[in-house]
């Protein structure tokens, strides 16, 4: 492999990894606060992709507008999922919410089949995103550079919210002690809703960029990216936002590079993620940047 190809693979891995990272953040934030694995998260990703498809291709809205609309729509869906499926179970045993999450996931996938049909649909990539730029001998497409850049900016913004603002402080507090946080005057349900909104917006954006990279949408497109992002969140240390991003990037690199260096193994591409999960669970169950897990009181 020459340097030229390696750079291509590198950028590719960076793109895939940051998409995993963006989805993983939603898992990790919700888990950090509610100790709930939001299985419906991958389906919010799918909805984001569909919404942008309908807005821009069916209704011919301009891209900027279609993307904003899709993010808003998917965020609303994320909020509804919390309100309808999780909030009534807040004081129920954790397993109930988990089962509810699985149910919501099936529901959304099948709703998508009913509403959008199960047929995959092609997403038209805007030409300006695909026109290659030559840097030396390396051919780069703008989309490939845009995905990691946007992700980086968004994650920085999110970290700012979580570590520098009042609602962020409340989020970090809820993750340790809900009752005490309420005693400080925090409306816990509102902060949890905010968490779902932020996670869903990021997932929707990841879904949009995913639909542009692999130019199609289908009702089950959220399942595998969702699984892998969840693995990324566990790998990075569930509950940790930087961990989710690092885990996502690690997974992106393992997946792209393994196929790049061992093309024979490309059929096992998806298996690498799960091998990585098993290894990290054996060696360091709390993940790379995870705190020691304490049972919630």
């Amino acid at each position, binding site marked *: 492999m020459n340097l030229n190809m390696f750079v291509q693979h590198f950028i590719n891995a960076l793109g895939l990894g940051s998409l995993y990272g963006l989805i993983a953040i939603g898992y990790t934030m919700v888990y950090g606060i509610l100790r709930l694995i939001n299985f419906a998260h991958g389906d919010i990703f799918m909805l984001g992709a569909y919404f942008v498809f309908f807005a821009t291709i069916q209704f011919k809205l301009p891209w900027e507008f279609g993307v904003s609309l899709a993010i808003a729509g998917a965020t609303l869906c994320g909020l509804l999922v919390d309100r309808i499926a999780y909030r009534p179970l807040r004081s129920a045993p954790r397993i109930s919410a988990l089962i509810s999450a699985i149910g919501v996931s099936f529901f959304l996938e099948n709703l998508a089949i009913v509403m959008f049909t199960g047929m995959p649909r092609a997403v038209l990539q805007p030409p300006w995103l695909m026109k290659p730029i030559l840097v030396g001998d390396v051919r780069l497409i703008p989309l490939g550079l845009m995905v990691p850049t946007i992700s980086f900016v968004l994650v920085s913004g999110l970290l700012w919210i979580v570590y520098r603002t009042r609602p962020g*402080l409340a989020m970090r507090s809820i993750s340790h002690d809900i009752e005490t946080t309420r005693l400080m005057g925090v409306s816990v349900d509102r902060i949890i809703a905010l968490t779902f909104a932020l996670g869903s917006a990021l997932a929707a954006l990841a879904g949009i960029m995913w639909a542009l990279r692999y130019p199609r949408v289908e009702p089950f497109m959220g399942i595998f990216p969702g699984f892998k992002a969840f693995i990324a969140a566990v790998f990075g240390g569930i509950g940790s936002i930087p961990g989710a991003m690092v885990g996502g990037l690690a997974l992106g690199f393992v997946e792209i590079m393994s196929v790049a260096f061992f093309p024979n193994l490309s059929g096992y591409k998806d298996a690498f993620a799960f091998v990585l999960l098993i290894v990290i669970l054996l060696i360091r169950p709390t993940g790379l940047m995870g705190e020691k897990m304490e049972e919630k009181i």
Partner: protein
Amino acid sequence: MLDIQNLNIWYGGIHAVKGIDVSIRRGEIVTLIGANGAGKSSTIRAIAGLVRGFKGFIGYTSDQEKQPVRLNGRRPEEMVRMGIALSPEGRRILPHLTVEENLRLGAYTRGSRAEIAYDMDYVYNLFPRLQERRSQKGGTLSGGEQQMLAVGRALMSRPELLMLDEPSLGLAPMLVSEVFNVIGEINRQGKTILLVEQNAFAALSIAHKAYVLEVGSVVLQGTGEELLHNPQVREAYLGG
């Protein structure tokens, strides 16, 4: 300021608080003392909105209002906005947040940065050791420092009624008197305080009014001074 009438609390089948009456006037330190399980914490938690489905009346008159407002059924976050803050039993500081972040969290309901900064200085003045440790994680503090932080955090909402649940719990005797000195100081500056304590001696020494609770009922009440010299109290709670 606070008026509790015929408060009854059940946990499952257990009748934990059996019709107690408590009243607090502005500017007082009122204490509820008694053994473990006497219903002290349940009472204070009911006022804070943490107990659902109790019976009886809890009325609260804030500075602005003339008529008492019924507190029953309100959520804890509303109570804070109404001017009632609770420093919970076991301190419950957030171990992964810094001292300063813990204090900021206490000021969550407030808008003015200038006022928050002012009150933070006030808390640091009361507890200079917190200022030294302002950027340390709460979990690294000693028990006494954590208690100071819990009291300081409750003060950050600028409450009219400050409720303290077992501030002496797990503290060495010297620290107990240090913390109680500050509680007295806070009161002398005009804050009304409801104090729940097992350490009867420390509590009675600073209280204007005290209620002795036994298995869910008030068995004695009087001024702190009276109860400190009451033979029954001395026998049961002050070691003769």
